[in-house]
């Protein structure tokens, strides 16, 4: 079965998306998800970036990384969430910039996606946030992330 853009939109357009159901589209959805991320449209790009993380594919990292480079914080947030579902090396690369993002929401989600097995470089950055973030709540979230890394 060939997955079309129409199939992907049907899965992602609902007001409340069922990602478990949407993931059944499988890796053939990836080119469409990349196209939707590149639209940089807050109503669809975050959903596409997240689904790229849910679906296991060799192309997942590229789609999530494209979202991580968006100038719209909502798209970067979805990339930060999706990173939790990538393999550790890919997750480390995606989260590297996001844990120090200028937007507190992006930082929060990036720190939540930090788990054991990520790169030492990332650990240094998480430690930096846990010590220097202006928000106490964010420092706490970073502290929890740091404990998961150790």
């Amino acid at each position: 079965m060939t997955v079309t853009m129409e199939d992907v939109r049907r899965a992602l357009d609902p007001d409340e998306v069922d990602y478990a159901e949407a993931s059944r589209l499988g890796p053939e959805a990836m080119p469409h998800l990349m196209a939707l991320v590149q639209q940089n449209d807050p109503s669809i790009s975050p959903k596409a970036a997240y689904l790229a993380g849910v679906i296991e594919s060799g192309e997942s990292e590229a789609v999530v990384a494209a979202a991580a480079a968006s100038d719209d914080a909502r798209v970067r947030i979805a990339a930060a969430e999706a990173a939790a579902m990538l393999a550790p090396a890919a997750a480390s690369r995606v989260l590297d910039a996001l844990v120090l993002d200028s937007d507190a929401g992006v930082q929060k989600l990036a720190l939540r996606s930090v788990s054991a097995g990520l790169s030492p470089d990332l650990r240094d950055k998480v430690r930096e946030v846990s010590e220097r973030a202006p928000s106490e709540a964010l420092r706490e979230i970073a502290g929890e992330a740091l404990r998961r890394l150790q």
Partner: protein
Amino acid sequence: MFVRGTDGSAWSKAWSLVPTVTLHLKILTAPTSFTVDQMVEGMRTVYATRGIGVAVGSRENLDLPLLTDLDVGSCTMGSVTTEQTQLFGNRNNVGTNQVAVYFIRSTNPPSNGCAAFPAGRPSCVVTSAASQWTLGHEVGHVLGLNHVDPTDRLMMGGGTWNITNPPPDLIDSERATMDNSPLTPSI
């Protein structure tokens, strides 16, 4: 029912006895595709076609930068995350059987909104990238409505950005469900 003469208050009293949902608007991040007022107006238009009133009980801005990108988990009715519980605790002015609507930046995972709320605290969230009809759709869920297939209906499951022939419709059976909800007292 008194509808006589030039007494404006008699008219208004007679005609205001309609089932009405009262919303309390809590704004963490303003929506970017439509304003909150446009969303309320859209909802009011649709609900009015079936004789359901929409009142705004209060409106306030909430400065909660770490809750505006909200973990909603699987967004299942009756089950909520720690963050939803935290957010829905902000209930200034919200009376019993009234609905708190939180305008947030985004949900995790990404959706346009979510109507899952804990027992006794009727609430929903609407994200900044929502359509004009998402507010009415989410409150529809709060009042007990489920998804339907036709694309010209408010509760269509294919996404309210794709609504055809706007304003979208509510049908009589949906009206009955909304009327039966304790959240629509006649006022």
